[in-house]
C-alpha cells in the first residue's frame, strides 16, 4: 500500500488537531485556547487503498521567530520533507493566517491550503472566493469544517493527488525588490553547490539574507550528521518529539 506523509501546519487554534483526530480516530488534545499541541503527534489513516501518515504540528503564527515550536514546525517541513503539507487556515481570520501560508508556500510546492471553520465564517456572513484564492496562491484550496466533517473527502483527494505527484502545484513566487532579488541571485548558486537540490534553494538564500541563525544551526547539524553516520543513529533521521516552553 502506498504510504504518504502529510504534515498539518497552521496558526494556533485553527482546528489542526480536530482534523487530525477526525482522520486518525486519535485523541490529540483540542480546545479553545492557543498552543495546545506542544508535542508533534503522528497517526495513520487509510482511505481508498492509500495510507496517510499524518503529523500534527504545533500551531504557530510564523516559522521564523525561532521559538521551539516554530523551529519544530519549520524543521519538519524542510528536513522531513513530507509528501504533502496541509496548511490549515481559520476562515474567520484569513488575513492573519495567510502569513504562515505564504511562508509554507515558499518552502514547498507540495501544499494544499485548507480553509477550516467555514461553518463559523458562514455564520458571520463571510464569503470566500475560492477560485480567486487558488489563482492568487497557485495551489489547491478547499474549504472545510473539521468539526462537522464537511469537505474532508475533497481535501484528502487533493492531498493524495499532490502527494503522489499527479498534481504539481506552482505556488506564486513572492518577490522582494531589486536589491534583495539581486542578492538571492548571487547566493542561490552557492547554496546549491553546498547543499545540492535537497532543500528549496531560494528559500534557504532568503533565510540566510534574513540572518536566520537558527536555521543555519539546524542545517549544519544535519550536514554533520550526514557526513558522520556512525556518530549515533541519525543517519536515518527520525523526527523527535519536541516540547516547547
Amino acid at each position, binding site marked *: 500500500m502506498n504510504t504518504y506523509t502529510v504534515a498539518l501546519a497552521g496558526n494556533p487554534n485553527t482546528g489542526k488537531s480536530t482534523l487530525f483526530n477526525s482522520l486518525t480516530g486519535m485523541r490529540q488534545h483540542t480546545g479553545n485556547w492557543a498552543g495546545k499541541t506542544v508535542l508533534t503527534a503522528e497517526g495513520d489513516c487509510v482511505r481508498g487503498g492509500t495510507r496517510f501518515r499524518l503529523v500534527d504540528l504545533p500551531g504557530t503564527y*510564523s516559522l*521564523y*521567530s525561532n521559538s521551539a515550536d516554530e523551529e519544530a514546525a519549520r524543521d519538519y517541513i524542510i528536513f522531513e520533507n513530507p509528501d504533502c503539507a496541509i496548511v490549515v487556515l481559520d476562515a474567520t481570520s484569513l488575513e492573519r493566517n495567510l502569513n504562515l501560508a505564504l511562508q509554507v508556500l515558499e518552502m514547498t510546492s507540495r501544499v494544499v491550503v485548507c480553509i477550516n471553520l467555514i461553518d463559523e465564517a458562514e455564520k458571520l456572513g463571510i464569503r470566500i472566493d475560492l477560485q480567486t484564492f487558488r489563482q492568487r496562491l497557485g495551489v489547491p484550496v478547499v474549504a472545510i469544517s473539521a468539526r462537522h466533517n464537511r469537505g474532508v473527502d475533497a481535501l484528502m483527494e487533493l492531498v493524495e493527488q499532490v502527494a503522489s505527484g499527479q498534481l504539481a502545484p506552482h505556488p506564486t513566487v513572492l518577490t522582494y525588490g531589486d536589491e534583495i532579488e539581486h542578492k538571492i541571485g548571487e547566493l542561490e548558486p552557492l547554496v546549491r553547490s553546498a547543499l545540492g537540490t535537497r532543500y528549496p534553494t531560494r528559500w534557504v538564500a532568503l533565510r540566510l539574507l534574513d540572518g536566520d541563525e537558527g536555521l543555519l544551526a539546524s542545517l549544519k547539524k544535519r550536514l554533520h550528521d550526514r557526513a558522520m553516520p556512525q556518530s549515533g543513529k541519525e543517519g536515518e533521521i527520525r523526527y523527535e518529539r519536541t516540547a516547547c516552553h
Partner: protein
Amino acid sequence: MSNKEVALSEAETGSRLVLSRIEVDGGMRRRLLDLGFVPGNEVEVIQRSPLGDPTAFRVSNTTIALRREESSRIFGEPEGEELA
C-alpha cells in the same frame, strides 16, 4: 503629518490606531510583524493590567498582550480624531 502619532504604550484604553512605525529590531521585530503589528494595520487598545503592564491589544482579530518595552516602540495614529 504624523504629529498625531503616539506610542501604543501611551494610547488610551478603548482607542483604535492605525500603525505607522515599528521601532523594534531583530527577532522581536519579526515576531511583532508575524503577530499582525504591521504598518497600516489597525490596533485596538483593549485593557491595561492593574499594574499598567502588560497591555492587551486587539490586532487582526486576535488579542495579544505586550509589555511596555515593546509597546513604547510601536507607533500609530489614533482613529476618529480628524475633528478634534
